């Protein structure tokens, strides 16, 4: 009798265990830092008591229980609240999107270019301020003469 009950329990638990294993490993904590509580104007993780935040969390938990992946949950939130619900800049609700990369690369390039420009300007300014030393001036003068000789003017 005990054996029969054990077999029956195993048969019942089997599909449930398989379904749980198939579920993507998504957690509320993983998502709430990447989406906004839109009425609070803060990421969901920071909006502890706001009623809309609690509603949004409950919705995310329902979707997790429904075996939805992180991207699917983000897309469901976008369908409800629009793109502004995504907290990360350029997040298209799809971790493989090119926007996710460009949004970080472009400002980094901009900062590098600006830093380079400032460094260049400061170096030139300091050189101009100190002026050429007599020895350097003589070297420069002879180099210019050599360069001029190479051209048939």
């Amino acid at each position, binding site marked *: 009798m005990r054996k029969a009950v054990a077999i029956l329990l195993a048969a019942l638990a089997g599909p449930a265990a398989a379904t749980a294993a198939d579920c993507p490993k998504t957690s509320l904590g993983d998502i709430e830092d990447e989406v906004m509580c839109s009425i609070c104007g803060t990421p969901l993780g920071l909006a502890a008591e706001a009623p809309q935040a609690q*509603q949004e969390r409950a919705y995310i938990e329902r979707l997790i229980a429904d075996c939805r992946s992180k991207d699917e949950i983000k897309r469901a939130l976008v369908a*409800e609240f*629009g793109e502004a619900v995504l907290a990360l800049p350029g997040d298209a609700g799809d971790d493989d999107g090119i926007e996710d990369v460009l949004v970080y690369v472009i400002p980094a390039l901009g900062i590098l270019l600006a830093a380079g420009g400032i460094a260049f300007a400061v170096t030139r*300014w300091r050189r101009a*301020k100190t002026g050429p030393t007599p020895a350097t001036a003589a070297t420069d003068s002879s180099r210019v003469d050599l360069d001029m000789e190479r051209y048939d003017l």
Partner: protein
Amino acid sequence: MRRLLAPVPIAVLTAIVALVALLAYGLASNEPERGVEQALLAGEREPAPEVDLPRLDGNGDGSLADYRGHVVVLNFWASWCKPCRAESPLLQRWHERLDKQGATVLGVDVQDLSGDALDFVSEYGLTYPMLRDGPGDIRDDYGILGLPETFVIDPRGRVAAVARRPVDEAWMREQVAPLLKERT
């Protein structure tokens, strides 16, 4: 003077000016729209900002302009908003009264889950038309900071009264009832 015109002081000055400008822009852009109240204080009525949104039940779109020529009690609400729960039965009673006189309550569900909003409508037996603004873009147009807020729109599509709090029977009697005698 030459020292001031050097690149480093110019760069620092530019950065400070840019930060101050950014701060000023941030403060100015967060200032809520209050032109409607100012006009009402001056005894005037401003045209109501356009409302053109999907219906909450998913059956196409609806617009405030659809009710031109009629008094509209435009109520912004959400299912997660507790004061909205308190005022909904009052709005439903007023809608039943207004409907007989060619006027209506028009609900706009703001920044809410559509499923929860539909449950709310069903729970309170609300029969007035409902629109939905999931992203909450309409809030800027009407200067909405919290929910609920209610605007009374006259038959010519102008804002005749504003309640930036839950409405009560006395407010509805004072602000809505006299408008019913107005024609376009």
